[in-house]
């Protein structure tokens, strides 16, 4: 009798990815496979997290190596378009159009994602509700606080119910209550797709992520469950929480 091996679908398949800016190699032969769930990216400034996310978001073409997302090859124009319809991205610095309202801004990007016309407005309403901005739906973006703008950014990223959601520092500017709500949202999105979230806040990773990777200098130093990262920090005194201690321990070991 034949044995059929069933493997979980890998929505993100990166092999040997290298990226250079000028003469500086920012990513070195990085391998990464991620399936369904919430995947956290930790690391110090300059580790390459944003470069990795930009590559996955198809902003940067892979310098070397291969990247396949949701089964699509990111270097093929036709496949890239199909991929982008199922992609959601929140950049680290989100620019906005000051005279757009919250609704208009999210609707604009829903249209650019080529969502079916009939689905656009109900989807925008749902996205606004999920980030708790109902009262501000008709407000101009220039009147919003930094935290509210961040939530607008999250809303445009999720409006098309993406199968692959990439978030770069999504909780910057959010208050603790909003961060709790955001983590719940992450878990919801991760239940049916892949979420990759880059953050400096280890508590976000611990609360929402099923798996976490620690990057430094363009490579991955650690990959595993948050509990595994905590275990690496046992006995260490550097850090104010178990996750921070694990984070510091892994970095310290790599720098020896």
């Amino acid at each position, binding site marked *: 009798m034949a044995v059929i091996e069933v493997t979980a679908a890998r929505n993100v398949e990166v092999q040997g990815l290298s990226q250079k800016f000028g003469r500086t190699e920012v990513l070195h032969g990085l391998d990464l496979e991620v399936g369904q769930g919430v995947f956290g990216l930790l690391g110090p400034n300059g580790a390459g997290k944003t470069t990795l996310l930009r590559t996955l978001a198809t*902003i940067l073409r892979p310098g070397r190596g291969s990247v396949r997302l949701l089964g699509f090859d990111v270097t093929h124009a036709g496949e890239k378009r199909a991929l*982008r319809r199922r992609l959601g991205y929140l950049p680290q610095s*989100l620019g906005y159009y000051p005279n757009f309202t919250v609704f208009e801004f999210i609707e604009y990007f829903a249209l650019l994602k080529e969502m079916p016309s009939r689905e656009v*407005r*109900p989807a925008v309403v749902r996205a606004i509700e999920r980030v708790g901005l109902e009262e501000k739906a008709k407000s101009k973006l220039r009147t919003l606080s930094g935290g509210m703008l961040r939530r607008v950014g999250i809303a445009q990223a999720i409006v098309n119910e993406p199968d692959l959601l990439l978030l770069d520092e999504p909780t910057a500017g959010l208050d603790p209550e909003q961060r709790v709500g955001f983590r719940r949202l992450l878990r919801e999105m991760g239940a049916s797709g892949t979420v990759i979230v880059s953050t400096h806040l280890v508590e976000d990773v611990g609360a929402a992520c099923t798996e976490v990777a620690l990057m430094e200098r363009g490579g991955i130093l650690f990959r595993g469950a948050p509990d595994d990262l905590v275990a690496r920090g046992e006995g260490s005194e550097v850090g104010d929480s178990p996750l921070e201690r694990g984070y510091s321990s892994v970095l310290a070991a790599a720098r020896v």
Partner: protein
Amino acid sequence: MRNHPRDEAHVARCADCQARWGLAALDVDLDRVWSGVAAEAWASPVGRVERLAGRLLGSPGLARALVNTPSLVLSWILASALVLGIGVMVTRQTEQPWVALLAPALAGIAISYAYGPGVDPAWELSQTMAVSDRQVLLVRVFAVFGLNMVLGLVASLGAAQAVGITLGWLAPMAMVSALALAAATTAKSANVGVAIGLAGWAIAVLASGRGTEDAAAAVSRPALVPVYLAFALAGVGLTLWSMSGSRSTGGVTWR
């Protein structure tokens, strides 16, 4: 009916009570109803121009990107028309073809502010969209160039210019627009695009107008058309190269 309880649970399953109380069978997706109501309340109406553009382009997203072009807003168009109107008046008074000199410059400025990271605060996000930045570029540049061409033609006719001069600035306009666009996208700055476009035009006017009093006629000579088109093609090529994903974007501040 006298013995029917009057609680919600009963009414929800009793057709007689529903009929009595004037309630239709509640077979409505209330979430969908709410979404529709909220969308109506929160959304802005879609203008006629955008609806027409959506039908012509076959893409509501592209149409929305087109109507949000900074240099296609009404105030910009009126300002361009005003400048050309002044050019018409000066031309009629001085009999110097000022429209031929102004039209390419205005087009170059408008093109610089049509597209690119210099004018789009959400540029990074725009590069992840299914409607690609190249599609947006093509549509916006075509529309802005076309509008400026129409404005220039109307102004030329208003100034009672000779046909040769009326049409002679089209090739220079293409060159200035392409140079401005290339500079704006490469430098990620609309202001740089404007500066390069105007500088290029000034050089072309001064160089071809040497030894003659009629700079506008000199710069519109048919013999110069291949030169203008060559520069225009070079500008387009540079624009496409600077838009390719192989260029790094890290550490660059959008201006």
